[in-house]
């Protein structure tokens, strides 16, 4: 059986070379640490950026949705007039923020924040990345939340106000909980997008997961293995996140009546 014999030899050689490459990429000099440390940085940046994004997104969304649904008819005097003025300015700034952030690439925003805005401070790269991705994500979250708020029947706001709740209380107790349930899938999706977007952090020489794989590639001159490893890790994290979002969604839906 010469055929099987030669296949066996080929297979042994192939296996040996794979094992050697694997050893070179991940085991030798503890290179797996680049991936592990990189993953931790990626998760850290994504986690804190999400928090900034959600807080910022909700604030901007509430200003925008309130502005779009307010009644500016009737004359205003004194404090009410001043309130309207402040409100107009706030709405204008929110609109500007949304336009600029959604109209420019996130890499450019990251570079500007690190090399321009924080140029004269010795700021931690992780912090710069958290701020850049948080501010970026906030713009997308804001539009998701705004559409969620606008999708709630306006009778809900009127019912809340007619009981005597003020605007903020009605938003907090009545509108936002309902909107949140509706937008959860879109928010979950936004977090997954954000996690993947942090892969450009290497532009400010931040050692995230992607950068970790790239460092291994540079040291070993082996591209396939470290890059596939990076891709697999992202995929695994994204799948865990999606499963989590799905579970939360199901739980919320089962309490939906």
């Amino acid at each position, binding site marked *: 059986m010469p055929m099987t014999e030669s296949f066996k030899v080929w297979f042994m050689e192939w296996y040996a070379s794979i094992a050697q490459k694997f050893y070179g990429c991940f085991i030798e000099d503890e290179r797996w640490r680049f991936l592990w440390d990189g993953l931790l940085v990626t998760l850290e940046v994504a986690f804190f950026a999400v928090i900034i994004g959600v807080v910022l997104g909700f604030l901007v969304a509430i200003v925008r949705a309130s502005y779009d649904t307010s*009644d500016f*008819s*009737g004359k205003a*005097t*004194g*404090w*009410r007039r001043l309130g309207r003025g402040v409100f107009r300015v706030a709405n204008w700034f929110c609109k500007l923020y949304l336009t600029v952030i959604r109209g420019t690439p996130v890499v450019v925003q990251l570079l500007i924040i690190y090399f321009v805005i924080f140029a004269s401070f010795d700021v931690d790269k992780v912090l710069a990345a958290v701020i850049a991705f948080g501010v970026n994500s906030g713009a997308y979250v804001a539009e998701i939340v705004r559409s969620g708020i606008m999708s709630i*029947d306006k*009778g*809900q706001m*009127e*019912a*809340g*106000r*007619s*009981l*005597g*709740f*003020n605007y903020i*209380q009605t938003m907090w*107790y*009545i509108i936002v*909980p*309902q909107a949140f*349930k509706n937008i959860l899938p879109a928010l979950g999706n936004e977090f997954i997008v954000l996690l993947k977007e942090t892969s450009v952090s290497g532009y400010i020489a931040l050692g995230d997961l992607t950068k970790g794989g790239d460092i291994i590639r540079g040291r070993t001159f082996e591209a396939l293995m470290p890059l596939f490893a990076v891709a697999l890790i992202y995929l695994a994290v994204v799948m865990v996140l999606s499963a989590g979002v799905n579970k939360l969604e199901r739980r919320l839906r089962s309490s*939906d*009546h």
Partner: protein
Amino acid sequence: MTTEALIRVEGLKKHFGSLKALDGIDLELRKGEVTVIIGPSGSGKSTLLRSLNLLERPTEGAIYFEGVNILDPKTNINLHRQRMGMVFQHFNLFPHMTILRNMTLAPMKLLHETPAAATEEAMRLLDRVGLQDRANAYPSQLSGGQKQRIAIVRALCMHPDVMLFDEPTSALDPEMVGEVLDVMQNLAREGMTMIVVTHEMGFAKEVANRVIFMDEGLIVEEGTPKEFFAHPQNARTRDFLSKVL
């Protein structure tokens, strides 16, 4: 002074752009009175009702509640609204909360009632409308008639001085109209001050102390149900009544 009006409306106007939804309304409402407002679609009935608790901000005029002009910027609108319950055509229950929570949220947060006290009060009111067994249900599990009865007692939990009803039975299947009107009639009997926009002429005849007919943003005619239905003075009133009776 028992004749002092609880609510007095003077020269009230509400314009939406060039549309004059209210074109100068003068009105006085006394405590314990049940006023029914009727009129064709678009005549401004809802706008008038919603102006009374400032869900619409009037363009011009004054609304005095116990002598205080609520259009004065210094008046606390939220406190005013606590004293004016409102029931909507489409119930507007909070779908993410149980019936009990729908009823206790505002008294707990705004009147600072204890959970126990708010719950006790809510259960007492639920009992009155025969829905005590639905306390832990969600709005979507109720029929339209049940939802509207809940909406009424939810408003009552705030101990309002006045109740506003905007076509409370118009979204209901015919067989459920009666159960809601019964609750409203009982409320009237207990002396609640009520302003009701409705197409239920039977309710107007039986329960109202006063009937107001509106058309094109104006009060065209008003009177006691007896004189109003028996001898309508205005041609437009007669025309409208001939269509609905």
